[in-house]
């Protein structure tokens, strides 16, 4: 098994495990972290695809650009999600907390 294969597999395992956790867990913060695990998994897959390389073993710059963009966007969503969670679970406990059904 080549190194690229190993990383592809690792990325897939991370993404699938993160997705399962994200869909099953009820705690909002744990869900947000699971979302980031899915993100890391997908980006590892992309990096591995980029490192597949041609004859000269160079990594594909386009895929690296995709990874960087993906990272930035995931950070933006994570920050916004954290603010929302803080508000939902904020100082005034609300009786209308319907966010963790399903």
């Amino acid at each position, binding site marked *: 098994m080549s190194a690229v294969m190993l990383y592809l597999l690792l990325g897939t395992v991370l993404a699938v495990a993160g997705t399962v956790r994200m869909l099953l867990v009820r705690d909002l913060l744990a869900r947000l972290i699971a979302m980031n695990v899915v993100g890391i998994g997908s980006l590892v897959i992309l990096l591995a695809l980029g490192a597949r390389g041609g004859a000269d073993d160079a990594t594909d710059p386009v895929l690296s650009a995709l990874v960087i963009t993906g990272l930035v966007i995931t950070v933006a*969503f994570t920050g916004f999600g954290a603010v929302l969670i803080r508000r939902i679970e904020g100082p005034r406990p609300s009786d209308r907390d319907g966010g963790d059904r399903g």
Partner: protein
Amino acid sequence: MTAAELSLGAVVLAPLLAAALAAALPHTARRALGVGIAALVLLLTGLLAVQTVAGEVTELALGGYPAPLGIHLRADGLSVLFLGMTALVGAVVTVFAAASRHTHQAFWTLWLGCWAGLNAVFVSGDLFNTYVGLELVGLTAVALVALGGRGSWAPALRYLFIAVLGSLLLLVGVGLIVSVTGTLDVVQAAEVLAGRPDAAPAALLALTLITVGLCMKLALLPMHAWLVPAHASAPSAVSPLLSGLVIKAALFVLLRCWLWLTDSSGALSALAPLAWGLGAFGAAAVLIGSVMALRQSALKPLAAYSTVAQVGYWFVAFPLLLEEDAAEGAFIGIVALALGHGIAKAGLFLGAGYLKEAYGTDEIEQLRGAGRQHPYAVMGMSLGLVGLIGLPISLGFTGKWNIATAAVAAEHWWILVLLAAGTLLSAGYAVRALAPLLLQESPTPGEARISRNYRSVPGLCVIGLGALTLVTGFGGVLIAEALEVGAPW
């Protein structure tokens, strides 16, 4: 640089700059800026539409760098149709928001950013900008939902999770296509795929990932649970944008990937199981979504479940896209249904939001007789429902007619049965929503004289969208002609 090329870049950049500017302006100036940008985008989209109707695909490489490296914008028939629908609905909702006293001050930055993202998705020539545009739309849409106050934060968060999961699947799919073809440009990637039959399995995997990711954002049936609370709890001016426009961006990307990427690569026939799966989920969505809509007691959740049902119609036609002699009709049908839904559902949601602002509730029973006081809003909602049922004259009718004709050509009779059942069910929930509003109850003593609200701008916006539902119904032939420009066959 011609006027059409200039407007191709400006439809994205003008709302984006305005979004940044709006954050720095005082509240009243934001409203003026929003209306001004809406007029500008309408004008720019009109320029592009003229060029497209003349049969020309408008293309622009930003900064003069061509496709593999630079940002390549392209507006063909499909792009211009979605741009046009977005401009019309966006402009009317912008006027509604500017005239409404309930518009949140953060609405303007978020909505203008969302508009820029939508336009970016529609004119993007490569998959990378499509992805960035979709993310901009997703992030601003989640924030727009959260403007609805405490009750909307939990649905907004749930929407955020689904949006991110969907985009990550899309990103991996796009990455796979890049690693196989070496390019992000849709046309170039299709050419590479056509010349390399050995790449078909990777392309199939990539398309499957992209499709599943986009179906999450589109709320196709098993993944629809997020949509109803998010669209129902969003503010009045936001729900029409979410249901009418935001989910159309994902549909646009899906059509682009299915029809342009797979063109003549032979991967299309391998997509058959996926297409049939989508068709089956679509059929279930039509039936379950309509039945759930019938069971709602409030207007906005009813409209949201109706969106779930309408999404189903688009996917019911997906198996037809693989049939040689039915593909074109099915394609026209899906686009017509999606455009018609955008306008009609925006009208319905805008009317529901208007009544909710006026009465403080959207429970149908408590709105009994609202048609007496707000005739324009209720009339606009009725016209929107005509479009959703698919009665002539509306794009809903054009779409269903085209899909039905294509289904007959391909001898898929079950689609006809499903269209008929869906139409009857939607007529049912239309009556359920409207009848109590139109009933002339004798006014309770003490409020003998009811002032009729004829001059309010928000009410006029609702009936404006209702009228657009009928007016665009005459444009069915134009849609077929426009889709010929830069068509994949």
